[in-house]
Every structure is written in structure tokens, then in C-alpha cells.
């Protein structure tokens, strides 16, 4: 059996470590064996390569030290930050980053609305991770150092000693080498050097190098250069990858309309491409355009009936459109498909409760609690509190909310609800405290402001009431009870 054939065979079967080991053997015998060298490079890269389009995560440094932001106060509908609140019927609660709850947790849904430094520092920080996400580059750099540990004889390739222009012109080696430097070594600058040399050597005719350049630029924060490279690459050969990367650039630039435009154009070339449709649906969801978003998710389902994200998002939409029975069908499908986690049981429990399948509710929540890891349990308790309120057992509701807070001390909505319940019990002082805590933790919630305002108004503290109700209306401008309070206060102040 030929050793090189064996190495190739292992590579094909995704046994990258064994493949790299055999290549090392070959290279020991003949250090100038280009094929073995390339194969080892590819094997090492494939070991740790992840699909970096999905893993895009915007950190503080990316979002704050960003000079590319065009408008701070964008027109409504043109920015993810100023997305208009949905109508009351489809009003969804917001997660701990302040974004409306989506059917699926994705890397991007974790990033906050980094409008100010304080906000950015606060939002992604949860009880789970004390440190906010810093930058993409920093994160991948850590991955890189970890991979170095696996090589006892030092790094396979001394990147800094490579003659970039020589290797750039070597067809067959340059591309795997770029991937190796970019993904395995995480040395973006050297990767960029190589890409620049290579695209020159290819006389700017190879779209692959342009995409490579774009990837480097995007990581280095040169978003506009990256955009240019991706566009140029797409002109030569349209690829789904490049379209997705371009759209993620626009997401980073907070230009959702451009994302939609790019993806729609891409869909003409690659009809019914699920990843592109998903991208559109996500952006529409972030823009609070739920009906259109769900339409895209439906298209995804007709194309790919087992797409979990689409099922989950449609289910969430049904749930918040007061059709828990339909949502229950979708969630049950997810369960049948073998999804088995706390979040799913939690959702099924809630759907059952609202669809009046009371016999199932306790069972589902028990399961959810037994499966819950970390802060998921907090959300489960929060929902059980809702059920308890519905049943009328306020003591249990209060205790559930306390449990929720004991698990996740940043649960703003739980503080608000606890405040309401305590106020009902007569502990108005405590209620004020909880409302204030809720306001501090979740500046995106209008409820604590409204509740605070209502309590203050009833207590006769009209000035506080006036101030807080304005904050409430700032968050949710169409909240009628808040408007009522404001009107009556203004009338009263005018009379004075």
C-alpha cells in the first residue's frame, strides 16, 4: 500500500490527524515532496476550520471603534438599531440583549444594540460570561494558539519566513497555504500579504483571491475595502459564499436594505437557495417585519422541510400571534425530529398552557427544568410564574420569579413582574425597588417604566410619574396606557 495513497484515503474519510501523521512521515523521507506538504497543510487546516460565515459575531471593539457607521440617527426602517416596534398584536418580548425574541438563538442575536459604550459593555455580559465579547479577531486568535499546542515540534510552517511572492505564484499551493495561514495560524496580516501577491500573480482574474482579500479586510475592519473585493469577485463568478459574506458586511454596516438587495439579487442566480433565504428572513425579523420574514421561512420549509430554524421561527410567530395551537404543532414536529432540550419543552409547555391543554403543562415544565442548563432554567421559572399567575396562585408566582432571579440575576423582565406582584400584595416600597432594578437592567423594556409611572401617579408623585412615562413612551411610542397617563398628567400640569 502506498503511504501517500493511505494519507489521501484518510483525508477523504476526514481522519485528518492520521492523514497529517502519514504526511509527516513522508516529509521526513523527502522534505521536498510538495504533494505531501500540501496535503498535510490541508489536513491541519481542515482539523480546525469552521464555517466562519455562520460564526460571525460582532464584538465591542468591532461595533464601537467603528468609523464606518454612516448615520447615528438613521431613518426608521433603514437600520437594525432603529427598527420600528411591531404592532401590539405581534409584540414580542425582548431577550437579554434587547432584541426581540427570535425562534432560534444565533451568534448574531447575542450581540447587543451597541449604540453607546455603556450599553455595549453591559448587554452581552450575562451571569454566564463575565466578559463581553471583544473582537472577532481576538476570539479566533485564541483558537489559533490552542491549535499550536498540538504540535510538539513547533509550528509546521514558519509563516513569517515564507517568501510570499514566490508561494503566491505557485498554483496549487497558494490557495491551501492561504487557508492554512488564515484559519490555522489566524495570521490575518500575512494571509493578506499572500492574497495581495497572489491576486497580482493571477492578474486579478481569479475571484477566489478577491474573496480571500475580502475576508482579510473584513477581519481587519476595513469593511469598505472588503465590500469592494466581494463585489468585484461576484462580477467574475457569482458564488453563494461571496453573496453571504457581502451581506454580512452590510449587516455589520447596519444597512439592512442593502442586505435584502444583495440577497434578492443572489436568489435570482441561485433560486431557492436556503442560506440566502435564511439571511433575508433573519434581517426582516430584525427589522420587525414579521409577516414577510415568516413568508421567507415558509419558502425555506417548502424547499427544505426539516429546517429547524424555519420551523422554530414560524412557531414563535404563531405563538405571538395568539395561535398557540398552531405553534404547538410546529414544536411537536421539532420534538418528533429528536430535538430534546429545555427550551423546546419550555415552549411546548407555554403553548399547551395558552392552548388550554392544562394536563400537559406541568409535565412539560418538569421536563424543561430537568433538562435546563445554566440560565435556561431562569427562563423556565419565569414562564412557570406566568402559569402560576394565570392559575391565580400569586405566592407560587412570586417564588418562581425569585428562583428565576436567583439563577439569572440580570433577568429584567422577572424583576418587573415581581414588582407588579409585590405591589398587588401591598409591598409597594419593594415594588418600586424592583421596577428600578428592572429599568437599570433592561433599558429596552417599557413595562417597568410604565408600572413605575403608574405607581408614582397613584402615590401622588406626579413629577416622577411624568418623567418615567416619557421614558416608557420613548421605548414603545404606541403604548396607549402610557399615553393616557401622559395626557392626564399634562392636563393636570396645565391646570396648575
Amino acid at each position, binding site marked *: 500500500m502506498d503511504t501517500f*495513497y493511505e494519507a489521501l484515503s484518510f483525508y477523504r474519510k476526514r481522519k485528518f490527524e492520521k492523514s497529517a501523521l502519514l504526511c509527516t512521515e513522508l516529509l521526513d523521507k523527502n522534505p521536498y515532496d510538495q504533494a505531501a506538504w500540501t496535503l498535510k497543510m490541508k489536513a491541519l487546516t481542515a482539523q480546525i476550520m469552521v464555517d466562519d460565515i455562520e460564526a460571525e459575531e460582532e464584538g465591542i471593539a468591532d461595533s464601537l471603534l467603528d468609523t464606518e457607521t454612516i448615520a447615528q440617527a438613521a431613518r426608521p426602517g433603514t437600520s437594525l438599531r432603529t427598527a420600528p416596534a411591531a404592532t401590539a398584536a405581534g409584540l414580542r418580548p425582548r431577550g437579554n440583549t434587547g432584541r426581540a425574541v427570535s425562534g432560534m438563538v444565533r451568534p448574531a442575536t447575542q450581540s447587543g444594540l451597541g449604540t453607546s459604550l455603556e450599553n455595549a459593555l453591559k448587554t452581552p455580559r450575562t451571569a454566564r460570561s463575565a466578559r463581553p465579547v471583544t473582537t472577532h479577531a481576538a476570539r479566533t486568535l485564541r483558537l489559533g494558539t490552542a491549535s499550536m499546542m498540538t504540535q510538539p515540534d513547533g509550528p509546521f510552517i514558519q509563516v513569517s519566513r515564507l517568501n510570499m511572492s514566490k508561494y503566491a505564484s505557485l498554483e496549487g499551493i497558494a490557495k491551501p497555504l492561504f487557508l492554512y495561514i488564515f484559519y490555522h495560524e489566524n495570521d490575518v496580516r500575512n494571509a493578506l500579504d499572500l492574497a495581495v501577491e497572489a491576486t497580482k500573480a493571477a492578474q486579478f482574474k481569479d475571484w*477566489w483571491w478577491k474573496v480571500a482579500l475580502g475576508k482579510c479586510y473584513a477581519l481587519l475592519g476595513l469593511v469598505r475595502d472588503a465590500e469592494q473585493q466581494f463585489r468585484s469577485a461576484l462580477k467574475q463568478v457569482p458564488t453563494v459564499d461571496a453573496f453571504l459574506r457581502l451581506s454580512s458586511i452590510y449587516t455589520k454596516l447596519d444597512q439592512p436594505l442593502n442586505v435584502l438587495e444583495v440577497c434578492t439579487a443572489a436568489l435570482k442566480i441561485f433560486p431557492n437557495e436556503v442560506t440566502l433565504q435564511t439571511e433575508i428572513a433573519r434581517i426582516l425579523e430584525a427589522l420587525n417585519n414579521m409577516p414577510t420574514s415568516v413568508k421567507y421561512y415558509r419558502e425555506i420549509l417548502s424547499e427544505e422541510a426539516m429546517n429547524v430554524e424555519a420551523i422554530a421561527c414560524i412557531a414563535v410567530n404563531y405563538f405571538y400571534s395568539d395561535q398557540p395551537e398552531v405553534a404547538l404543532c410546529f414544536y411537536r414536529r421539532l420534538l418528533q425530529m429528536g430535538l430534546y432540550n429545555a427550551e423546546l419543552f419550555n415552549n411546548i409547555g407555554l403553548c399547551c398552557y395558552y392552548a388550554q391543554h392544562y394536563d400537559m403543562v406541568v409535565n412539560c415544565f418538569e421536563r424543561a427544568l*430537568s433538562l435546563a442548563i445554566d440560565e435556561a432554567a431562569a427562563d423556565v421559572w419565569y414562564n412557570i410564574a406566568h402559569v402560576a399567575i394565570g392559575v391565580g396562585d400569586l405566592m407560587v408566582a412570586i417564588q418562581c420569579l425569585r428562583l428565576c432571579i436567583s439563577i439569572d440575576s440580570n433577568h429584567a423582565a422577572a424583576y418587573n413582574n415581581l414588582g407588579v406582584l409585590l405591589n398587588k400584595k401591598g409591598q409597594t416600597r419593594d415594588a418600586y425597588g424592583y421596577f428600578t432594578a428592572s429599568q437599570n437592567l433592561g433599558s429596552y423594556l417599557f413595562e417597568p417604566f410604565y408600572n413605575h409611572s403608574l405607581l408614582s401617579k397613584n402615590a401622588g408623585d406626579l413629577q416622577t410619574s411624568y418623567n418615567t412615562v416619557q421614558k416608557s413612551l420613548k421605548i414603545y411610542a404606541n403604548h396607549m396606557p402610557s399615553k393616557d397617563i401622559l395626557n392626564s398628567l399634562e392636563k393636570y400640569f396645565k391646570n396648575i
Partner: protein
Amino acid sequence: MSLFKVRDLWTTKCGKDEVFESSSLLIADIRGQNFDDIIVGSHSGYLRIFNPQFDLEAEEYGAFKAIDQLIEIQLEEPILQIAVGKLVSGSKVNHLAILHPRSVAVYNVITKTGSTEHGDQCQINIVYEHHLKRSAYSFLVGGFGGVEGRDFLCVLGLDGTLMFYEQETLSLTRLLPNFLLPSPIVYIPHTDSFVLLNSNWHIESYRYQILGEESTDRVLPSWSYNLGEDVNDMRFLSLTTNEAAIFVLTERNFYCFGETGVLKFCKRLQYIPLCCHIYSRGEPSVMSMIVSDSNNLLIYEGSKLKWGAQLHATPVAISRASLESLQGCLIVLTEEGELECAYLGTEPTVFVPPPIQNSVLSNAELESKYASLQHQIATYSKASKESLGAPTQKSEIKLTTKTWPMSDSDTTCSIEIYLTTGSSVHNVNITIEVCKPLVAEPATHFIQTINDSVEVSTRISVSEGDIWDLNCNIVCTYLSEETFGVVSTDVELPAKLVLELAPPSRGQDFSLTFTAMQVVILSALFSDFSADSWNTTNSNEYAAGFRYRNNPSITFTLTLNRPGLKYRLEGDSVTSLTLPVCILAKKLASKHLKSNQYSLGLNELFSAIDENIRLRNLIREIETELRLGSGQMRSAQRRLLSKMRDKTPCDMKPLSALIAYTHDYLMDAAHRMEGAQIDLNKNGHLLANLLKFTFTMIRLTGNVLEEELKQAYEAVCCTQHMSEEQGWAEITQFSLSHLLKTILARSVRDQFTPDPHTEVITNSFLLKKKIAVVIDRLLKGHRPREDRAVSPIMEGDDEEGKEKPTDSLYDELESEEIRNLLKKSQHNLDHL
């Protein structure tokens, strides 16, 4: 994750510790029987041919039977790939081609019909073998150059050489340009070209003809597509006679190209594909099976997902076969050699979640558990609330005191105060409080920081005045790291400080008799007096005389009637008896000391109240005088000033006389004011003395609720309170009314009596009556008298009714004694 599972039909295991890969599996009709056989070759050189037969109607159709395996033979070299084609010249029969690393061999498969039930016998015979000069990677079989009815071989070497064998002869060797790592290769008969990936990740198509032209130095591809990705697998499917599709599976995408290199569709995969198989279900649908890294088998029609099912194992190769007993059967080969025939079950395997660990309790058990938890929570939160609140029972400072024993000649008593602390405290203030004639020197101590312990001492001496209380209250306030704290303690000063023994005397004005369950002899009660003084003063265990050291003229005598279990206390005045009564009450508290002479001091108390009111009235009068006088003084001075400024001189004498007179008048008033205030102060002490006496005596009656007595005493005891608008009388009246409305209320009517006006009290009658009623109610104990509440008819004699017809409290006084005393004091006042 998928709703369906692939159903097993037939399984077997090929060898032990053998290695297989995607090229190890071939489905082909090798025997010309119009159904497919499964041919598997391993890297260990074993060739196996299976013909699974199962009766779908039978119950156990899934078992492997020996008859299903047609052949198992070990070849000398590892088997890299197997192919089938008409490879022997002059024969239209399919032959088996096997690629070894350094050779390629063609075998003939022969079936000998068996006569017994063992079935047919199968043999393979080598037809010819080519030894390769270079290591082989893969090979292709096809009618290159458009030949009909026979197939040629094309071997791709690891170094990128294409070696063409036209059946038994080597026809051509060609080195591919731009080659580094071998890639999958397919032959497209429609265009007679080979498609593969070059090292720059372009898909290139080379025409056989161009490859065959010897003259060209460098072969040029007929088309090329910049794919930009490494290729996992490449397949070819002939759609029609002139249309073909090339399927390219990469790490992230699944592409479909036309035969001329036009991209038909592309699908981005959201998983890592392992292997694939392409087949056609007839015109025009193109089906592709892709296995994901999570062992999901996904079947697409075009780019649209049609079916998803879960596989049991991770395959390296997947294919579709038309077996003898089943058309379109799924063949799966794993790396370890598990060979499986399967079908896509349409019945969903519903995922059944595992049962929850904790067993379900009955409702009653749950209820009780819930109740106990609720209780736990309630008690816990109470405890935690206490621990959270600022002032706690636990103090950081421990305060202990020590009173030094006094010798006979000592006139002062010294108290030592020890403070010990566990943690560091600062700003410590110690205050020693004693009743008026007693003087503490120094009265306060201030210590900046205490780390461990500290000791301070204070001397108590006696000044002029009636002594009625020997209690000394020591209060210590401090700040610690988080909070502040207060510690206090009471010290009883020794009686020796204020008393000394005197000869007992008899027949003094006031006498009190106490009864006790047990008696203690006097020398034991006052043990701190020396034996000498007992002897010199003729005092003994049964009779002892005492006098106050600061005022020797005031004496009292205590005698003990041992058989009668009685103490008798005699003194010149009520005020002098307060101290011995308190001492006795305290020392004999455990002996059930009792007396019912609570009214002894009431007369004095009432007259002291009268005096208090009188003095306050007097002070107000003097104030008015002072106001008038000073007004007169001011206007006289103003007048004097204007006269002085006047140009015309005039006589100043009358004016100066007026000023002198006013001055005298003011000075006189001021002196009287001073006197009155001193008197009021003294009266305050007297009041305190008498109140203490009265309330101690009330307690000694033994039928009073301790809590009520304490509150009532606290309502009246602030005798030193001085302000112009609010004196002791006002405060006492108000707090007593409150008491009468709350804890001392005896009827519903009481609870709705209006609050007294907070005016300056000039008449003592109402106040005295309130005190009388309070004492009366205290004595009666807690006996609610609802009958009185419903009766609107006032009771009591008519005489008082005439005097104060509106006063409802008056007639409540049931105790004749108090009523008489009250009347008497009223009478005295009227007389004055």
C-alpha cells in the same frame, strides 16, 4: 435530526480489521442476470461479492445467510477500486476490473449452476493484468473515443499521469498539467472528455482526442470552471443521449454542471457531506443522496430536499441497487466493513423522551411537601430579613460594670466600666445617667477607637435633695465598619452611698406595712453596712433606723415582724419613703412582697400636681410682666433717644425715673422668674419621686398587669421636660388620654373620646382626674366592661354630676378612696 429512520433490511460484516473507503463499493450486474450484485473490495485485498436474497413476506428477512455471499477471495494486493466493463476483446460480457496500487487486473466471473440446494458456485479467473509504473490513485472504465460495445481503462496515477489501456494494450500515457493532488475524475461520453479538478481548484475538462494528440506539448482543457474549493466527490449522470450532468460535492456546496461546464444549480450545504450517490428516477428528475456528518441521509431532487432519514452508522459509501428481491434498495458501507441493505421507512419513528427521574408522588404527598417548603421559605425569609436589618441583637461591644465596695468614710462610689470588642469600633460614647441629687463625675466618656478592650471609671457623689432612685443607667454608643450600635446596662448603686444607719424611732407620721411570703432579716437585706454601725445605732435584725447622708434630719425606720411575716416602714414624709420602698420592692421581689397602701402618696402627688400647675401659671404671669416691662423699657428708651436728639433741651428727670422704675420692675420679675423656675425644677423632682412611689406601690398591690403599668409609668415619668408651651402636664395629659383610649380602654365609648386639646393647662383638675382614672383602671386589671359601653345612663352620685355634668370619666371611679382623695384635693384647690 430527522423524523424518519432508515430501516434495516439485511446486514453483514465484511472481515475483521479491514479498511474500506468510498471506492470500495460497487453495485453492478456482473453476472448478466438483470439484477445487481454488491461487490466489495477491501484494502486488505479481499474481494467479496454478495447477492442478498430476502423474502419480504417472511418474518425474519433481515438475517444474513451463507447463500447470500457468492464469493470471498483474497488477492495478493490491496484493492483500491473496482469497476465493471466489457474489458476483454472479443467478449460482450461484463468483466471485473480491480485496481491495485501497482497494477490493474481484469477478472472473469463464472457461475457454475449448482445441482443441490447450496446453490450456484461462483469463481473468478484472471484474464489479464497490467503492471503500472506509477502508483495508482483511481481508474475509469468507458468507451473512450466513442467506441461501441467495448470499454477501455484509464488509470489516474498519484502523480497525475493518465494511463490508458485499450483492453490488453497500453495505448497512451499522458501527464496532466497543473497537477498536485489527485482528485476524483469522471468521464463524460457525450463529449468524450475527462473532467477533474486541477491543483488551482478549477474544474477542467480534457477531450480524449486532445489528450491523445502526441504533438501538443501542453494539453489545453476544453472548458474550465473556477470552483475555488477542494472536491470530495464527483459523479456523472447521463440524462439523455446528448445531455449529461456532472455533480460535484465539496466541503460546503453541492454543484451540478452541464456537460459543457455550465453551472446548472448550486446548493450550499449546512452540514459537512460524507458521501453521495446520484441516480435518476427516469426523465427528468435527478436524485442525489447525500450523507451528512450527523449520519443523516438527505435525498434531493434537484436542489429541493425530498426526504431525510437517520442512518445507524457513519458510512463511507452509499449506493442504490436493484437487487433480485428488491428494486431500489439502499446499500451502505461503513469504514469497518458493515454492509447494509436498507430502505427508507415511511413510518416516522416518534422520538420518545426518556422518563423523568423523580417518581410521581400522590397529590396529598405533594401538597404536604409544598406546605413544608412554604413554611421553610417563610421562616427563612424572616430570619434573613432580621439579618439584613440594621440594628441587630448581636452587638459588637460587650459592656460589663463593676461597683467598688464602699467603706464607711467614703462619700462617693466608683463604678468601673469594661468594654470588650471583637472587631474594631470607633467613636465610642459612654454616658452615665443618674437621678438628680446623685452626680456622676465624669458623666460621659469618649473613646476614639477600641480594638480590643478598654476600661473607664466614674465616681458617683451625692448633692442636696431628696434621693429617690439609686438606679444608674450606662449607655454606650459606637460606630463599627458597617453600622452603628447601642449597648446599655443598668447598675444598682449601693444603698450605703446615700443612707446610713440611725437609731430606730417609733411613731413617725407615715407608715407602710408590707406582707411577704417569706421574710429576710434586715441585716441581710442591708448587708453592706458594717457591723459596727449596726451596734452603735442600736439597730438589729428586726428594727433598723436609717437617715439620708446628705440630709441627716430625714430618717425612716424599718421594722420586721417575723412571725407575722410583715415589714413596717415609718418615715417623716412620703418622699423619704420612696427609696426604701424601691429597695425593698427590688430585693424582695421574689418573696411576693405586697401592700395595698397605694393611696398613701396620692394626696402629696395631687398637691404636687397642683403646685406644678400653679408654678407654671406663675411663670406665665411673670412672663407677661416681663413682656410688658420690657415693652415699657423699650418705648421709654426710644423716647429718651428722641429727646436727646431734640435741639431744644428739656428735663430728662421724669424719663430717667421711669426707666429706673421699669428697670427695677424688670429685675424683680426676673428674680421671681428665676425662683419660680428653680421651684418648678424642684417640683419636677418631687413629682418624679411621688410618681415613682405611687407606681411602685401600685405594683406592690400585686393585681396589676405589668405591661399596662409600665406603659402608664412611661406616660407620666418625663418630669424634667421643660418648654414654654409644653410642660409635664400637657404631655402627661395627652399620653394618658391616649392610654385610656387604647390599652386601658374599658368600653367602646372610650375608644371614641376625642383627643384633649393641646392647650396650655391652667387647671389641674382634669389632669388629676385622668391620673386617678388611670390608677383606678390599672388596679382593676384587665376586665373589659362591655356593659358600660351599651348603657347610655351615667352612673355615680348626683353631686359630682352637677359639678361636671359633661365629664363621663368622673363617675367611673369606683374606688371610693381615690374619689375621696380627688374630691379633697379639689376642695383644697378651691379653698386656695
